[in-house]
């Protein structure tokens, strides 16, 4: 009984202290210069977090909140006015609302296979054939006599939309393709299957998968930058109107030299 009572007297003040501390912290940030909110593309998210960190280091009075959600969410939220900045990892279409675009970086999409796959490159036509389901065996494109496991992203993903627009064109990704709902899961799926092919953001390629050359052009940052690599998409920050105040400061920081240095460090293609 005594021990129990002891615990109670210990836990209660702890909880109270935590609550007070939380309120104080919240109070602090709302008392500062202001908060910038951003959400949208999960491809942009890790980059935006790095940029926000660097911006906060220079401007400690400003709080930047970065969230994911996907390009469609970013476009919708900024148009609704729910956030200050929306992020999109694809070109805006006629179906999207009119927004002010701020080109943050460019990102190549790499076609990836298992590192043990002898195939090192494909033509664009072969890639279309594979993803549409017309080519179903690696031997048809110069590989081993094994069936091809097509792995793609789910409907609505910015990476899928960009891949559809930049590679597939009118052709549809076959309906029995394996779908993974993030760049990370897709990479795991390809790295654990010697017959798999998939596509992810070039900045996320590592040694667990092999990026294929397209039409003989290797999937390198350099080739994406000089325009020879054909599958490159823009990464945008979107605002509803021309930005002002701290939102303008943040976007200027990201598109300026300091921000672009981080863009390059993170493996994306810088913009002038």
């Amino acid at each position: 009984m005594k021990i129990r009572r002891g615990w109670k007297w210990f836990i209660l003040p702890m909880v109270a202290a935590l609550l007070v501390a939380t309120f104080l912290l919240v109070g602090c940030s709302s008392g500062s210069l202001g908060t910038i909110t951003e959400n949208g593309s999960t491809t942009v998210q890790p980059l935006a977090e790095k940029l926000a960190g660097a911006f906060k280091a220079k401007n400690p009075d400003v709080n930047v909140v970065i969230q994911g959600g996907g390009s469609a969410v970013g476009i919708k939220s900024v148009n609704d006015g729910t956030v200050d900045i929306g992020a999109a990892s694809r070109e805006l279409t006629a179906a999207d609302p009119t927004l002010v675009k701020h080109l943050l970086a460019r990102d190549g999409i790499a076609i990836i296979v298992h590192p043990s796959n002898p195939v090192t490159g494909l033509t664009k036509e072969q890639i279309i054939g594979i993803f549409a389901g017309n080519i179903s065996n690696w031997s048809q494109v110069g590989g081993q006599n094994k069936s091809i496991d097509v792995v793609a992203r789910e409907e609505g993903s910015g990476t899928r939309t960009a891949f559809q627009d930049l590679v597939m064109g009118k052709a549809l990704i076959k309906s029995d393709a394996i779908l993974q709902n993030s760049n990370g899961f897709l990479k795991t799926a390809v790295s654990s299957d010697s017959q798999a092919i998939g596509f992810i953001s070039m900045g996320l390629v590592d040694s667990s998968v092999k990026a294929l050359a397209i039409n003989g052009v290797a999937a390198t940052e350099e080739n994406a930058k000089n325009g020879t690599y054909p599958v490159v998409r823009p990464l945008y920050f979107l605002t509803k109107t021309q930005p002002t105040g701290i939102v303008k400061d943040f976007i200027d920081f990201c598109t300026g030299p300091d921000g672009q240095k981080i863009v390059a460090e993170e493996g994306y293609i810088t913009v002038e």
Partner: protein
Amino acid sequence: MSRYFIDRNAKYLVLVCASTSFIILAAIAIFILKEALPAFQHVGFIHLLFGTTWRPTMGGFGILPMIVGSLAVTLGAMILAIPLGLGCAVLLAEVAPHRIRQFLRPAVEILVGIPSVVYGLVGMLLIVPLIREIGGTGYSVAAGALVLTAMVLPTIISISEDSIRAVPRRYKEGALALGATHWQTIWHVLIPAARSGITAGIILGMGRAIGEAMAMIMVTGNAVQIPNSPLDPTRTLAGGIAVEINYASGLHENALFAIGVVLFILILAINSIAILAIRRGRHAQDVC
């Protein structure tokens, strides 16, 4: 006055506590129905429920493949989990010596606590490659069913074991006294007498299986198609919501909520059957 005041008002306090859960249930039902309504209006109930094309960004909103996918993985899991679970429950309740039971019971209980994402990861890196050896891509109905089997086993085992233990001692004594062997007693007396509890366990396990999203996303391949064989990829209803909700907006989002309504109704039906089974079993036992 305070002692009587508390006594008079305590019932209202517990009433408030109890109604909270009902209010939450009602709020969820109203919310998903409201969000799903535009999809039902725009696509039509029949087209939505029995359409086979799911291309939400291009106007295809048929969820039949996902309904079939959910039922297929659940059925597969049940075919594996019912005999396994029942066997394990009989072992724990009747056969195993105390020391083995002491070790096995906590092991089964730990299975419940493992997060579904861990089941999914193990399935993705262990079961999927194994199934790929047999044929197909490995991401399949079979992989989903195997992962779900592991996930529902503890539910079936613990509820079945408890209900076998709850069979009155005189049943077992009576059977043995009449000359039945231990196995005959288990098979012809204990299991039939514990039937309602076992059924409830199976149905609760089924509810868990049909609602599982994370692990299913990771191992079923998520291709929206009616599977022709256990080796084909498929997508479940719960997995379908989780895969696309991040990127959905407008009618696409409403359609995902419509999937939620279908899932809600399915789980409501399963739970009602469970309640009925328990009630009928209790009644039957009383008559005995």
